[in-house]
């Protein structure tokens, strides 16, 4: 049986990480939830950040990619995985993430859910769905067992 996912653990695929910086919109709204709550964990890996930083370098510039990588590395919790693995799926698996955010329809299809299920019960979501549906108060009260104190971190810091 698959291990229970950790409800406070989130993975964002490289498209969502790069879109958070370069586009805004749903990706930024979704990741703002993570930035605003110290008790939420963003699981990352070097290959995942390499992919996103390469996108930033290609669409913006190398200096922004370097600064972004340092900032997101400071926010995230790193896991290791084999080089050939899909970085986001591997992070979800290794980090027992409850949520995997991606713009990739393939990843969001049932097939991926079925592939992940033996490892961890991760829910693969469009970032817009996460931004709309994620209820930090409900999760906090369920996990911590205390009244939700509101955001505890500046999402722009």
């Amino acid at each position, binding site marked *: 049986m698959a291990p229970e996912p950790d409800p406070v653990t989130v993975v964002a695929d*490289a*498209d969502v990480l*790069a*879109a958070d*910086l*370069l*586009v*805004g*919109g749903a*990706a*930024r709204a979704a990741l703002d939830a993570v*930035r605003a709550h110290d008790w939420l964990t963003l699981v990352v890996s070097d290959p995942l950040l390499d*992919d*996103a930083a*390469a*996108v*930033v370098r*290609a*669409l*913006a510039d190398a200096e*922004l990619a370097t*600064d*972004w990588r*340092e*900032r997101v590395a*400071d926010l995230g919790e790193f896991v290791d995985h084999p080089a050939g693995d899909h970085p986001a799926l591997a992070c979800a698996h290794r980090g027992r993430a409850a949520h995997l955010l991606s*713009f*990739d329809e393939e990843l969001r299809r049932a097939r991926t859910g079925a592939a992940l299920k033996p490892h961890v019960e991760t829910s693969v979501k469009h970032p817009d769905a996460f931004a709309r549906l994620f209820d930090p108060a409900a999760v906090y009260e369920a996990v911590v067992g205390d009244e939700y104190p509101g955001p505890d971190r500046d*999402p*722009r*810091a």
Partner: protein
Amino acid sequence: VVVVSWAALFERADADEETVEDVRATLAAVREEGE
């Protein structure tokens, strides 16, 4: 290492007009190149 704030990063990045489609196409090219 001095970590730049998210606010400063967004301000620098928002000068351009990328779309999610641009990001996805670029990521596909990056991953294809890496294979």
